C-alpha cells in the first residue's frame, strides 16, 4: 500500500510547518540585505511561533496559547510601528536601506 | 436537502444578485446624481437608461486592456482582482432575512452565519486596502502612487473609528454574529417603536451609527473622503493607468464595498430585516402598496403618453405590469415570509445607499491633512467616548 493520508492531522505536522517557517525566516534574516525585508523576516518568525502556540493550545485543550499569540501580535504591532519609524529615520539620514551600510551601532 | 447543494444555490443566487446590484448601483448613482444636478442622467440606452450598465459592460469588455511599459505585470494584474475579490467576499456573512421555509426546505436567508461574522467583516475590509495600494504602486505612475499612499493611510486611520463604532452595539447585543445581532434587535418599544440599535434602551446608538457612516464613507473612498482618486489633484489616483476590465474591476469593487457597508450598517444599527413597525399594524402590506402604486403610476403615465419618448409607450405599460406582478408576489402566502424581510432589508440598505449618492452630490472634498486630522482628533476621540459611555451604561443596567 502506498502512502496513506492519516484521517486527522498529526500535531507534529503543525510543529514541523512552524519549524520550517521559522527557519525560513531566520535564513531570510541572515541572507537579505534590505532592512525592510529583514524586518519582515522577523515577523515571519513571530508568526511561526504563533502557530506553535496555537497548536499546543489545541493539543492541551487550554486557551492560554491563544492568549500568548494575542500578546505576540500586540507586541508585533508596537514593534512594527517603532521599527518602521526607525527605518524611516534611517532612510532620511542615510538615504539607504542596505543593512550593511548602517553599521555604526558599535563603539 | 444536502447542505452543499443548498449552499451552492444560495451562493449562486447571491452572486448573481450582487453583481447585478453593483451594475445597477452605478445606474442609480448616475440617475440620482443627475436629478440632484438638474439633468436627467442616463437616458439613451433602454427606457430611462435602464440598459446603460449593460452597454457600459460591453464597452469595457471590448476595450483594449493596456499594460503600460515598466510596470510589475503580476502585481499590476493582481491588484484589481484582489480588490474585487475582497469586496465580494464580505457578502457571505450578511443575513438578509430570518430562517424561512421555502418549498419544504428550512434555511437561513443569507450565505452563512459565522460566530465571528463582524470580525470577519473587519478583517476583510482591512485587507481591502491591498488592492488599491498595490494597484497604485504597480502602475509606476506618480499620481497612482500618491493615490495608493493616501488610501492606505486613510483606510488604516478610519478603520479605528469604524471598529470602535461597531463595538458599541456589540456591547448591547453581546454577540459577534450578524444573525444574533439582528435577532437581538427584534421587538418593539411600547409595541410600536422598533428596538433597533439606534433606538437601543440605555443609550441610543445614534452616535455610533453616525460615526460608522462617516468612517464608511472614508473606507469606501467616497466624497468627501475620495482623496485617493481626487481627480482635480491626482487625475484618477490609484487607477489612473487602468483601463478596460481591470478598471471595471476597481469600479465594481468600489460599488460592492458601498453595498456591503450599507448592508452591515443595516444589520448592525437598523435592525436588519425587522420591519419599521409591527406586522399586526400592517407593515407586511407596505411592499405591495409601494410596488403596486409604482405600477399604477406607470400605467397612468403610459395612458397619458404626453412628452414621453417614443417607446415609453411600450416600456411604461410593460414595467407597470412587472411592478404589479411584483406587488402580487408579495401577497402570495407561501412567498410572503421570504419576500417581506428581504424587502425591509433592501429598503433600509437602499436608503443608506441613497445617502451615499446624496452626499456625493452635495459636499466638496477634504484636504488630505484635514482628513487625517478629522479622523484622529475628532472622530477617534468621539468614538472612544461613545464606546465608554455605552459600556458604562450597559454595565449599569
Amino acid at each position: 500500500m502506498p502512502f496513506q493520508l492519516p484521517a486527522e492531522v498529526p500535531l507534529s505536522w503543525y510543529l514541523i510547518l512552524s519549524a520550517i517557517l521559522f527557519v525560513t525566516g531566520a535564513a531570510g534574516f541572515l541572507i537579505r540585505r534590505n532592512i525592510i525585508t529583514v524586518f519582515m523576516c522577523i515577523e515571519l518568525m513571530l508568526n511561526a511561533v504563533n502557530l506553535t502556540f496555537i497548536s499546543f493550545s489545541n493539543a492541551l485543550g487550554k486557551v492560554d496559547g491563544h492568549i500568548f499569540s494575542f500578546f505576540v501580535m500586540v507586541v508585533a504591532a508596537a514593534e512594527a510601528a517603532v521599527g518602521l519609524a526607525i527605518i524611516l529615520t534611517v532612510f532620511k539620514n542615510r538615504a539607504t536601506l542596505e543593512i550593511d551600510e548602517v553599521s555604526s551601532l558599535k563603539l | 436537502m444536502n447542505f452543499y447543494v443548498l449552499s451552492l444555490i444560495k451562493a449562486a443566487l447571491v452572486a448573481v444578485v450582487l453583481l447585478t446590484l453593483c451594475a445597477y448601483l452605478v445606474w442609480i448613482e448616475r440617475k440620482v446624481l443627475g436629478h440632484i444636478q438638474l439633468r436627467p442622467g442616463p437616458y439613451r440606452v433602454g427606457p430611462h437608461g435602464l440598459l446603460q450598465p449593460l452597454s457600459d459592460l460591453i464597452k469595457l469588455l471590448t476595450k483594449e486592456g493596456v499594460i503600460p511599459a515598466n510596470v510589475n505585470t503580476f502585481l499590476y494584474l493582481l491588484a484589481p482582482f484582489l480588490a474585487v475579490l475582497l469586496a465580494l467576499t464580505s457578502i457571505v456573512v450578511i443575513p438578509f432575512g430570518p430562517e424561512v421555509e421555502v418549498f419544504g426546505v428550512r434555511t437561513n436567508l443569507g450565505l452563512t452565519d459565522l460566530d465571528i461574522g463582524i470580525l470577519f467583516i473587519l478583517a476583510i475590509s482591512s485587507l481591502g486596502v491591498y488592492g488599491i495600494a498595490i494597484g497604485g504602486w504597480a502602475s509606476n505612475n506618480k499620481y497612482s502612487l500618491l493615490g495608493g499612499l493616501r488610501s492606505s493611510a486613510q483606510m488604516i486611520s478610519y478603520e479605528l473609528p469604524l471598529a470602535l463604532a461597531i463595538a458599541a452595539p456589540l456591547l448591547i447585543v453581546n454577540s459577534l454574529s450578524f444573525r444574533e445581532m439582528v435577532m437581538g434587535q427584534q421587538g418593539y418599544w411600547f409595541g410600536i417603536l422598533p428596538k433597533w440599535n439606534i433606538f437601543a434602551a440605555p443609550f441610543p446608538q445614534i452616535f455610533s451609527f453616525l460615526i460608522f457612516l462617516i468612517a464608511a464613507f472614508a473606507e469606501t473612498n467616497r466624497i468627501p473622503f475620495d482623496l485617493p482618486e481626487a481627480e482635480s489633484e491626482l487625475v484618477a489616483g490609484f487607477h489612473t493607468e487602468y483601463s478596460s476590465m481591470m478598471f471595471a474591476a476597481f469600479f465594481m469593487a468600489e460599488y460592492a464595498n458601498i453595498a456591503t457597508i450599507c448592508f452591515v450598517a443595516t444589520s448592525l444599527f437598523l435592525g436588519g430585516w425587522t420591519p419599521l413597525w409591527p406586522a399586526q399594524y400592517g407593515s407586511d402590506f407596505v411592499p405591495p402598496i409601494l410596488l403596486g402604486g409604482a405600477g399604477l403610476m406607470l400605467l397612468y403615465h403610459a395612458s397619458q403618453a404626453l412628452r414621453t419618448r417614443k417607446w415609453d409607450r411600450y416600456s411604461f405599460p410593460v414595467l407597470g405590469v412587472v411592478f404589479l406582478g411584483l406587488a402580487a408576489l408579495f401577497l402570495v402566502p407561501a412567498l410572503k415570509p421570504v419576500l417581506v424581510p428581504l424587502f425591509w432589508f433592501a429598503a433600509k440598505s437602499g436608503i443608506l445607499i441613497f445617502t451615499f449618492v446624496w452626499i456625493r452630490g452635495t459636499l466638496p472634498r477634504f484636504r488630505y491633512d484635514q482628513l487625517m486630522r478629522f479622523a484622529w482628533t475628532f472622530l477617534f476621540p468621539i468614538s472612544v467616548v461613545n464606546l465608554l459611555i455605552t459600556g458604562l451604561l450597559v454595565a449599569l443596567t
Partner: protein
Amino acid sequence: MQHLWLIPALPFAGFLVNGIFGRRMPKAAVTATATGSVLLSLFWTVKVLLGLGTLEHVYLERYFTWLQSGIVNVSFDFAVDRLSAVMLLIVTGIGSLIHIYAIGYMGHEHGPNHGGYYRFFAYMNLFMFFMLVLVLAANYLVLFVGWEGVGLCSYLLIGFYFLKKSAGDAGKKAFVVNRIGDFGFSLGMFLILIHFGSLDFGSVFGKAATMSPEASAGIITAICLLLLVGATGKSAQVPLYVWLPDAMEGPTPVSALIHAATMVTAGVYMVARSSALFELAPVAKETVAIVGLVTAVLAATIGLTQWDIKKVFAYSTVSQLGYMFLGLGVGAYSAGVFHIMTHAFFKALLFLGAGSVIHALEGEQDLRMMGGLRSKIPLTCFLLFCASIAIAGVPPFSGFHSKDAILLAAHHHAPWMFWVAVVTAGMTAFYVFRAFFLAFLGNYRGQGHPHESPPVMTAPLGVLALLSLVGGYFDVPHYLEPMFHGGHAPHETSLVVISVAAGLTGIGLAFLFYVAKPGLPDAVSRLFGPVYRLVYYKYFVDEAYDAVIVHPARDGSTAVLWRGVDAGFIDGIVNGVGSVARSVGGGLRQIQSGYIRRYAAWVLLGSIVIVAAASFLGGAR
C-alpha cells in the same frame, strides 16, 4: 436607589464636555454646560433629600469594590446623613450661585478661544465634582479622593492666571502647604486602617464606641491629632494657614467658592465627621479648640491692618475658620457646622461683593484707592452692608446666631476661651466695617469710572444677601443634634449681650477711625509702631517659615544630599562600575562589528547550543 452618584457625576460630565470640547464650543454652550450641570446637580440634591425624608439613619449606596488587597477592602460608597445633607445643600447651592455670578465676572475673558473662559468653568465643574465626592464619601479613602481632588482644583484655580508669576507661586504654595496637611491625614488614615481594620465611617465609629477606652485612648489620640494636621492644612489653621491669603490670586468667584465657602470648610467637615473619634480623645479635642482660638485671634489681628480688600476678607476667612474649630474643639459640633453654613452665606457674599467692586473698578483691589463708592454702585454697597452686619454678629442676622452658639459653648467649656473669642469678635466687626467704610464712605480716591455690575452678577448676590440676613433661622444645630453627642450649652442672656456689645463696639470704633476722625488710624499706628509693623507684616510668619524650614531644607539638601551623597557616593559607585564595565567591554568590543546580521548569527548559534544542550543532556525523556 436614589442615584446619589448623579450629584457629583453631573458636574463631572460638565467638566468633561467643557474640558474636551470647550475650545471649539461657542461661549453660550460652555456657559450652559457648566452652569446647567451644577444647577442640575442642585436640583438632584434637593430631589434626593426630599426623597430621603427626615434622615433618621444614614442612607448608604454601594457602587463597586474599589480596592481589595489584604486587609484593605474599600468599596466605592456614597452616603447621606444629616451632616452631609447640610453640606450638600451648601455646596451645590452656593456653587450654583457662584457659577451664575462667574458668567458675568469671567465674561470679559477674551482672546483666542475666548481666553480661559471654558478652562475656568471646566475647573470649577471639576471642583464641584470633587467637593461633592468629599461630602458624599462613606469612607475615609473616598473622602480622601475628594480631599485631594479639591486640592488639585484649588491649585489649578489659584494659578488660573498662570502668566502672572505671583499667581503661579501662590498656587504652588497652596499645593505644598496642603501636602504637609495631607501627609498627616494619610498617616491618620493608615492608623485608622491598622487599628480598626476598616475605613468605612460606620464600622470605624461603631468599633471605636465599643472598644475599651483605656486600650485605645493613646492610639485614638494619635489618629485624631494626625487628622487634625490634615484639617489644619485644608482649613488654613495655624500653623498651616499661610497659603490661604496668597490664594486670593485666583479669580474672585474662586476665592468665594473655594477659599471661603466650601473647600476650606472641608477640614471642619472632616473633624465633625470624625466627632465620634474626637469624643474619645479629649487631648486632641482640646488641641482643636486651642488651634482654632489661636488662629482666630492671629488672623483677626492681621486683618485689622491689611489694605487689599480681598486680603482683609481672606484673613477674616482664616479667623472665622478658627471660630469653627473652636466650636468643634469645645464639643459644639453642630454649632461649628452651623457656622460653616452662615459663613458660607456671608463670606461668599463678601467676596462676590468685593469682586463686584473690583469689577466695577476694573481690577483695583487696594482700599486706599476706593472710597465713596456708595453713590456710584449703590446696589453692591447695600449687598456688602448686609454681609458686613451679618459677619459682625449683629442680631438678628445669621452671623449672630452661629457665632453665639459657638461662644456659648466656649463659655461652657472654659470661660477664658469665651473672653478671647469675644475680643476676636469685636476685631472681626472692626476690620469688616473698616473695609466697608473705606470702600463706600468718604470721597472717591481712584481714577476710573466705576459702573454697576450686570444683573447676572448682582442677582446671585441678592440671593446670598437674603440668606445672610435670615440664614440664622435655619435651625441647623437642632437638626444636627442627634448626630453628635456633645452636650448642649445652656442659654445665658448675659453672655449674648456681651458678645453683641463687642460686635457693636467694633463697628463703632471702625466708624470713629475711618469716618468720623480719619486721622486717627495713622496716629494709633504711630503710637504702637513696632506692634503695628509686626501685625502689618503678618507676624513675619512667611519669613519665619522661610528661615526655619525652607532655607535649611534647601541648603541641607545641597550640602549633604547633593554634594555628599549624590555626587560623592552614588556617582562614585556609578563611575566605578562604569569604568570597570568599560575596560571589560574594551575587550569584548572586538566581537561587535556593527553588522546586525552578524549579531543575529551569534544569537542563532547561541540558541542552537542551548537547545542542543537541553535536549541531549537533560531534557530528553
